[in-house]
């Protein structure tokens, strides 16, 4: 008898989960977390093992599907696909959409498999490591992730840093949980903005709606620079695209996995951090952001690396690694099973089933995305005047669904669409604003936790060896960005002089 559960029904359920997850991930405003939450009631009718096949399929598919709109229409399907747009969309615009999608899918697959290996072999070790990361280290990691703003704002550093801080400020709107006081919220908006602006309406407003405004202003001109249908040998996908990317692929997958292991740090931080490191270690950092496969590899490997990583604290400590695994807890609870420190030893069959299910879901994800993607990539050639009305409608539905049906989130979508449009006009990088917005709440949360535990002493941030190491990375990352920016300015000045 096999030490895990698998059968035709489980394989079919996993395939359904992956396909539906990909669709959720590909729709702006819908996420893997929503997919798992929506399908949770369906699992009442299943045993735990079958339910896990379905939910893990939704999780893997949901995380992976986000790359499709990120690459083809510059709209991240999920928050963790933000960095995918940086290089994916420029590639699609120059007629290499299919190639970009395939690079992303292969990277996602590798990221998922590396995180699965980490889950299978190193769970006790990694959960012990996670316990060594207190609020101090988490604050420093978030700070480290924020340094990507400096790297992304090359040539306009002041604007980028302003946008980043502005994003942090806006993320702090709403009720402060420590004393229930409202911050930056007028009295009449309190019931709507208890939790401030939600990430998804902000994200799709800034990326999708503002882009539609911009293109409407320009008359919706068809913008693909080269319609070679992927037949040009230079823009056709081949596994040679990964030549020289081995280290990037493994490093980014491991960053994603480790960010998943740290509860409360989040998937977006993983892809941001991996992208920043890809840029820092690249031989041609100037190419990242212009359509380099390197950036795409970093982003996609890390956000799928998160899947196995986030299950580690869930299954070994009983605390979820990200928002999706937080919903997965319900599936276990409904079946009367407690996930926590004794879960693996007390439920060996379920544990093995999780590993097999995760492997199967990654393989199904690869097959379901890699081969049909040739047809999906044609979306880029659909005239904008036909595509955008549908995108607007889907974005509105996505925003409306963010908090289970609030019209305020649709208004937020529109507001941030206008904000993004204005940002474009005054040349403020929306990506920097968004990174500040995503990381702002966690930054404050871990800062307060650290300070309250230390009795108000700021020295707590310099008191632990792991913290010193992260400080070193922060300083090195900022110094490198400053040096790179100065070098770029010098080069531009020299070119102008000539």
């Amino acid at each position, binding site marked *: 008898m096999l030490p895990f559960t698998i059968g035709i029904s489980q394989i079919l359920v996993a395939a359904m989960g992956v396909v539906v997850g990909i669709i959720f991930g590909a729709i702006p405003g819908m996420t893997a977390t929503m997919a798992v939450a929506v399908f949770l009631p369906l699992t009442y009718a*299943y045993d735990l093992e079958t339910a896990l096949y379905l939910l893990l399929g939704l999780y893997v598919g949901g995380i992976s599907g986000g790359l499709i709109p990120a690459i083809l229409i510059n709209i991240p399907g999920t928050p963790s696909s933000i960095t995918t747009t940086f290089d994916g969309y420029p590639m699609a615009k120059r007629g290499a959409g299919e190639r970009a999608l395939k690079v992303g899918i292969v990277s996602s697959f590798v990221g998922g498999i590396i995180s699965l290996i980490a889950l299978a072999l190193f769970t006790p070790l990694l959960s012990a490591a996670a316990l060594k990361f207190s609020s101090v280290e988490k604050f420093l990691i978030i700070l480290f992730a924020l340094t990507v703003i400096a790297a992304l704002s090359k040539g306009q550093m002041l604007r980028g840093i302003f946008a980043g801080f502005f994003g942090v400020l806006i993320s702090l709107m709403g*009720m402060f*949980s420590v*004393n229930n006081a409202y911050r930056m919220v007028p009295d009449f908006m309190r019931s709507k903005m*208890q939790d401030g602006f939600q990430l998804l309406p902000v994200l799709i407003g800034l990326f999708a709606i503002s882009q539609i405004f911009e293109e409407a202003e320009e008359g919706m001109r068809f913008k693909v620079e080269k319609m070679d249908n992927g037949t040009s040998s230079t823009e056709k996908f081949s596994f040679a695209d990964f030549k020289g990317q081995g280290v990037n692929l493994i490093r980014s997958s491991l960053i994603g996995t480790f960010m998943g292991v740290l509860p409360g740090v989040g998937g977006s931080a993983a892809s941001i951090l991996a992208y920043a490191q890809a840029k820092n270690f690249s031989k041609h950092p100037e190419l990242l952001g212009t359509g380099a496969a390197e950036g795409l590899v970093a982003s996609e490997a890390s956000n799928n690396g998160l899947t196995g990583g986030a299950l580690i604290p869930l299954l070994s400590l009983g605390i979820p690694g990200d928002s999706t695994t937080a919903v997965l807890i319900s599936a276990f609870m409904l*079946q009367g099973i407690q996930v926590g420190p*004794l879960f693996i030893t007390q439920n060996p069959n379920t544990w093995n089933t999780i590993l097999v299910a995760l492997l199967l879901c990654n393989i199904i994800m690869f097959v379901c995305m890699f081969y049909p993607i040739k047809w999906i990539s044609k979306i880029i050639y659909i005239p904008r005047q036909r595509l955008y009305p*549908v995108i607007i409608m889907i974005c509105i539905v996505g925003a409306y669904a963010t908090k289970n049906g609030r019209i305020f989130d649709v208004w937020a979508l529109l507001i941030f669409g206008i904000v993004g449009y204005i940002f474009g006009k005054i040349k403020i990088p929306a990506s920097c604003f968004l990174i500040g917005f995503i990381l702002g709440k966690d930054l404050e949360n871990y800062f307060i*936790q650290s300070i309250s535990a230390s009795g108000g002493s700021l020295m707590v941030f310099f008191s632990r060896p792991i913290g010193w190491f992260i400080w070193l990375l922060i300083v090195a990352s900022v110094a490198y960005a400053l040096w790179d920016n100065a070098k770029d300015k010098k080069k531009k000045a020299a070119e102008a002089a000539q």
Partner: protein
Amino acid sequence: MKLKKIVSLLLSGAMALSMAACTVGGGSNSTAPAASGSDSNAPAAAAPAGAGASSLKGQNVRVVIGSTSTSGDSYMIADLVTRYLSAEMGFNGKVDAIGNAAALDEIANAKGDGKTVMMFHDMTFLSVLFGSVSEDYALETMTVGPRIGQNPGGCFGAAAESPYAKLSEVTQYLIDNPDKTVSFNIESGATSHLCFAAYYLYVQETHGDEVAGRIKAIVGGTTAEKLQRLWDRNADVIYGDTSAFAQYTEEGVQDQLKMNMFGSCGTVNGVEIDSMADDGVTFNGAPFDFAKDFCMYFPKDMDASVLAEYEAAMKKVTEDPQFQADMAKLFYNALSADEVGVEASQKFIYDKREMCSELIERSPSLDSLT
């Protein structure tokens, strides 16, 4: 040309689907009563097919809860009750976890036709008493409906290596060690805040300001964040649910994670734990227990006949042995038919609010305890 037509057709279809999605109340999709013939032992799987007759038969009913979590007690109880009521009254009920302020706002603006219900615990009125939301959302602005269940599982927890395993031992520790403080990680404006305040007032009353003054509060965080604070030893005592803490009390758990739990809000079936009252904590001279009471709330102008239908259905549901078993599996208490009656529920909830109001008035501000 043909491709263009196909693309246009597909895009139109997508738009139509999107519009259809928007027209479903609250973005909800209906949840049919649980499937029959299930091989699962899940509590919810056993919801029976009831009479299915009411004025809401075949309609979509949106159940909002004041939490955004789908793994906490609010969702679990609301979801279970909704499925049983769906079967009993024949409607398609769906629980939406939209958060406290949003849920109160929803009820304040909904029609009193029974198609929008809030199912939530004492935070409904505690959030007004603590000032988290305005008086516009006081109980008087809505209709208190039938109570649906009770979770007595809120409790305190401390690291197993700490010198106390009961609230009375925390007090003794503070008396024996005048240079020490004990920090409690709680949430502002929530049940944990109220239980902490009751304990603080009890210590102040019985041992004076000096001992009580060394009880400190750390505010905020989910259960996961509180556990991490405990594991980091950044908090001495945390507040959570017995169902979340129980696993860390078992043999075989590593030392850093191992903990004791104590001072629950009432008797928890199947769990060996002293309640606050068992441990001697009193308020106004009476033993203090504070189980979370879950109740249905409707708009102010609620249709009396529909309310009566809900009451009758809830009375049937709460007497159903399968429902009682499902609640017990989740460590929650089902109530008697008399307790869920609207009149009894209203009296119970208003009395409880009165007691809480007095306790909050007497307790010090958290700002002075952090």
